């Protein structure tokens, strides 16, 4: 249990040197090759920064062999990795890099021009490594405040020395969007992620014959499932091209994937574009959904499209390391537990403990709804260099001796070993005319009555007292009889919960993590006359 996150990858590289560890940009990278690339990066960090504090190396790369070698190289050097995403705005990336305090950055070829803009605003001196770029003269000239290394400057792989981190050292630092607009850095220790990986490779019986999807961006923690659950057992991580991310169905079949893991929103789009016809994806063994609520209609359509796979809904905030509750979808057994047309989030994996509490942090009765608190081996170290935010979110409830993480998610407490059901974010409860309203309940009714899967309800306009009413966004075309839809919804909801407006979009905008982007929807509302 207590071993570094990269241990499984190293073992697989010994056992399966010639098997594909990675398929990216249309090329296959064998374990031995990826391992060598990572060792060279690690040895280079060790040579040029023998003493560094904090022990963090950033990776600014996107869907390239270097992006993966960079993550592994940072880890093999003994550092934690700070993944950065070239698709995010420069300002945000610069904030994350500065905030992390990382001393080295690994940059791939394609991201080099963007990185110059990031680095120009950095005051700290950084070691910049360009592992697949030999022509760095221009970069070196434009960034005199930093040390720039080209591919030819890398150390040989044989120079790498094991420098195993203690189990409590951070393995990765990810930034999640904070409600105040400032991203918060979540530090996940080796022991947290290793505990999670140990569990999932057993649960899913992963072998070297598996082929994993890698849809998640590296700045999103499910990516650490994709990579390290695969590498633990010698499986292959398959990364789509940018265009393939819009046509995931073709990607699944072209890559012969066996393990799929991504957001339900993407499945909603696939269903709408005719990509979930029964029997389309026979190679899939596991279909995992997470990061947002999974509608029953989507679970059913996916189960039919991937008939040889088991569909699971998994749940977990970054602070609890990728996923900490699991529910195996079964069209019959799951049904009684589905609420608001949503698949349950299931039960904690062994070792993780759940506590469902009221506003005073007292446990509610089984079957009651409250905020979910959890702890266990996957509970992360907290927010990086932010003791105040850490103290606010990692708390000791009255009558307990240990610390729990407050998820901010509302769930129904399990009854008799049944699954927990997700009831929306604590912040997604809005107050209308003094009534407390769950947006998820409105979404469920609108979904059913409109016969559309993609629905987001928002409180709007904002008032001093809460919100003035509800607006429903629907993904799809407006029906001819809009008034009839409003009537049907109105017949099932109290008046204050009936959307005042139904807005039809071809597509509900997604944030970079593939989840419905409520901030973008708010901007649409703000732009309305």
């Amino acid at each position, binding site marked *: 249990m207590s071993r570094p996150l990269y241990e499984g990858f190293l073992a697989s590289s010994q056992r399966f040197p010639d098997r594909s560890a990675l398929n990216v940009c249309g090329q296959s990278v064998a374990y031995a090759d990826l391992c060598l690339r990572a060792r060279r990066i690690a040895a280079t960090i060790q040579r040029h920064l023998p003493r560094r504090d904090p022990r963090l190396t950033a990776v600014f790369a996107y869907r390239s062999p270097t992006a993966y070698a960079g993550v592994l190289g940072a880890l093999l050097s003994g550092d934690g990795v700070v993944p950065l995403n070239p698709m995010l705005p420069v300002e945000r990336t610069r904030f994350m890099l500065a905030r992390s305090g990382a001393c080295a950055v690994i940059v791939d070829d394609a991201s080099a021009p963007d990185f110059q803009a990031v680095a120009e605003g950095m005051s700290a001196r950084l070691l910049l490594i360009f592992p697949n770029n030999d022509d760095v003269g221009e970069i070196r000239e434009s960034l005199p405040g930093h040390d720039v290394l080209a591919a030819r400057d890398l150390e040989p792989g044989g120079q790498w020395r094991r420098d195993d981190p203690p189990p409590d050292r951070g393995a990765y630092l990810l930034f999640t969007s904070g409600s105040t607009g400032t991203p918060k850095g979540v530090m996940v220790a080796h022991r947290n992620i290793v505990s999670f990986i140990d569990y999932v490779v057993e649960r899913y019986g992963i072998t070297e014959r598996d082929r994993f999807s890698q849809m998640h961006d590296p700045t999103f923690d499910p990516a650490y499932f994709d990579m390290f659950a695969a590498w633990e057992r010698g499986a292959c991580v398959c990364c789509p091209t940018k265009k393939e991310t819009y046509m995931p169905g073709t990607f699944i079949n072209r890559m012969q994937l066996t393990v799929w893991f991504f957001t339900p929103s993407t499945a909603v789009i696939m269903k709408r574009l005719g990509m979930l016809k029964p029997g389309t994806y026979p190679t899939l063994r596991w279909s995992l959904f997470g990061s947002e609520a999974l509608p029953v209609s989507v679970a059913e359509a996916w189960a039919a499209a991937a008939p040889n796979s088991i569909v699971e809904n998994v749940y977990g905030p970054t602070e609890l390391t990728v996923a900490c509750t699991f529910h195996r979808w079964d069209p019959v057994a799951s049904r009684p537990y589905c609420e608001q047309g949503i698949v349950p989030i299931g039960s904690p994996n062994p070792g993780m403990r759940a506590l469902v509490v009221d506003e005073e942090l007292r446990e509610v009765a089984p079957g009651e709804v409250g905020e979910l608190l959890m702890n266990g081996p996957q509970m992360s170290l907290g927010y990086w260099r932010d003791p105040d935010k850490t103290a606010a979110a990692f708390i000791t409830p009255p009558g307990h001796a240990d610390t729990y993480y407050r998820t901010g998610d509302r769930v129904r407490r399990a009854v008799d070993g049944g699954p927990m059901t997700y009831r929306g974010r604590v912040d997604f409860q809005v107050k209308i005319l003094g009534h407390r309203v769950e947006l998820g309940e409105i979404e469920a009714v609108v979904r059913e009555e409109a016969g559309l899967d993609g629905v987001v309800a928002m409180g709007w306009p904002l008032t001093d007292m809460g919100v003035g009413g509800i607006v429903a966004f629907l993904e799809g075309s407006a029906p001819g009889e809009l008034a009839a839809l409003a009537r049907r919804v109105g017949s099932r909801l109290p008046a204050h919960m009936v959307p005042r407006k139904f807005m039809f979009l071809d597509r509900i*905008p997604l944030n970079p993590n593939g989840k419905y982007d409520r901030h973008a929807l708010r901007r649409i509302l703000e732009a309305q006359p």
Partner: protein
Amino acid sequence: MSPVSSNEIRQFIIDRYADTLRDGGYDPAHIDPDMDLMGEGIVDSFGVIELIGAIERRFGVELDLSGLNPEHLTVIAPFCEYIAKSIG
């Protein structure tokens, strides 16, 4: 359902993005059939799905893109041919 030619679809797309094309220095009357709308920054990821929705409404069809080569997703000629074929 009357068949739709790939030319009609092509024209619909070019009309839809005429302003953006002109802003990007392209002449909407002379668009290279091999032009990649996403590659040239004419549509983004969000725009792709909007475009598909717009085609569905304009021609009164429901598109099935499961047979399309992803690399052809926004390349004008093969994209329009695929849609015309799947509608016809």
